[in-house]
């Protein structure tokens, strides 16, 4: 993918390359419509996430990787399986537990991950068009 702002550049190597299956499982739980995305759409999704992370401090990326590992393995304690092996309803229950966790640091971690996923999904022009958003530089003129 060329490195322009229209097609967000990837960090090199991609920040979350090792976590792609997990991130996609999380994304489909946060935005159920993501399950219908084709490989090209996932590539755009990944590129947006990588691009946002590329500008962030290395420490933040390290903490995100740690958080992702915890999401993958913690469900073993409660469900006996890793996150990527859970049923959709179990995945949702687990993520909801993180979102409402008594510890603010856990809630903030989930908020950051959720924000990245929403950027990857709603940062794509196809998604924006699909939800009916059509702001135009031509403003009122474009509505006539």
């Amino acid at each position, binding site marked *: 993918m060329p490195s322009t702002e229209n097609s967000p550049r990837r960090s090199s190597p991609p920040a979350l390359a090792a976590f792609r299956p997990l991130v996609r499982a999380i994304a489909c739980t946060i935005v159920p419509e993501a399950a219908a995305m084709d490989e090209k759409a996932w590539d755009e999704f990944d590129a947006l996430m990588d691009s946002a992370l590329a500008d962030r401090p290395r420490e933040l990326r390290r903490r995100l990787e740690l958080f992702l590992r915890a999401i993958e393995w913690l469900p073993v304690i409660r469900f006996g399986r890793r996150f990527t092996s859970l049923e959709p309803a179990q995945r949702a229950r687990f993520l909801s537990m993180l*979102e409402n966790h008594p510890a*603010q640091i856990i809630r903030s971690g989930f908020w950051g991950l959720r924000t990245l996923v929403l950027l990857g999904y709603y940062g794509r022009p196809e998604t924006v068009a699909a939800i009916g958003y059509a702001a135009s530089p031509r403003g*009122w003129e474009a509505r006539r």
Partner: protein
Amino acid sequence: MNERAYDIVIIGSGAGGGTVAQELSPLCRKGLRIAVLEKGPKLRDEEFTGREFEMARVLYEEGGGFLTAEGTMTLAFGSTYGGSTAVYTGTSLLPPERVLRKWNVPGLTLEEIERRAQKFKAQNNVHLIEDEFLNENNRLFVAGCRRLGWNVGQFPVNVKGCRGSSLCNLGCPNQAKQGTDRVQLPAAERNGVEVITRCEVLRLEEKKVLVRVSAKRDGTKGEPSAWEPGEYSIAAKLIVVAAGAVNSPALLLRSGFGRNLPRLGYGFTAHPALIVVAEHDRPITNFVGHPKSFYLDQFAESDRFLLETCMYFPFITAKSLAGFGEAHSSFMRAYPRLQMILVLACDRVEDANRVTIDSAGRPVVHYHFTPEVTRALVRGAVASARIVFAAGARRVHLPMAQPPTIEERDAARLDGIAEDAPFQLGKVTVSAAHLQGGCAMGRTAADSVTDAFGRVHGAPWLRVADASLFPDSVEINPYLTIMSLADRVAEKIREEVSAL
């Protein structure tokens, strides 16, 4: 190390720096050399596309997602030619009298702020948008408030030739918004002021600025800097810091001023804000027209919140809705039927809230939410819900409620939320764009960083001229107050210029 020399160097090109540049620019005709140093790029007109991710990452510091140290709030501030004036909505209010009384800055009165602001209201074409260009997102806010008996005000805004793109916060694609990027900086440049973009100030020494100029990367937006990439040492007889409420105190801290200025970095306030989203049964005009035309401030003193109309872009909207899954997606799919209100808390100076620097000298903003601030956000959200229901919405999303979606038939739930809703920091998306304080004006180094004219205590060659001067929250959208204060700082410099 490259070397340059100027009489006056201004750091930052937003409401503060752009104003100082214009007001000092007549001095160029008398032979003085003046430069403005701006960290961000200057975009060409055709590069303002209105695409959310693309524009946010090039116009805002950290793409608009600068996180506080606690990870509970993001800060949005511009990093481009014109600073935050390139990305605000141009709402042009002046503070209430109580704010100036609370500030208690020697000799500074509301009358003076108003007098100076008049000049900028004229220059920047501040006026009320005509009725026929108000969209339904704004009209429904007015209708709901009136049905509740609440007094709305219309924002004067600084646009010229607005086509109603609704894209103000992504940089106007029609050059209609009259920020310093369109008015004060071009005027300053015509008079001979040099503006150096992509120029990051590393630190200050006595009458010297050390900077790094970055190259324009292939495929990225903006013009290249006027200077070759590299590090420079710039001699200056006078330095004006106007890098904003995060970067101004951080620059002074990493330059060692904290040793003699114990209040440096303290006094940070921000108007923490969240978005209330409501769905109507029918499509409304929302992503067309000026997004922010009305406000409600009658609860600012009693309950410490302000409400403003707003309309955000898909990603920001998605981020602001709490939760996930089908409930979240169903709001997003309703985008053409959405009404939005921005709830802003009027915070106060707290010693825990301040700007520091990390080991590399980068700014770190510490922000602890007081019970008063979270209560203001909850009460403001509940008031917003009452407004949208009065305006005919079928359901509303309150991010702190459990569950967040409230149907119109369940509006009675609002009473309980107003009194009891726990505010889960880290779950509810809170952001702030009115960043203030950190280099407060006052009397002595014991209580402030500068005097009443932005002169840094103990360093007469160094001035501050931006929102970091505010001794406490301005309680309204701040840019016009910043310009008035910057005008005051510039006037004092002109009086003293013969001594340079």
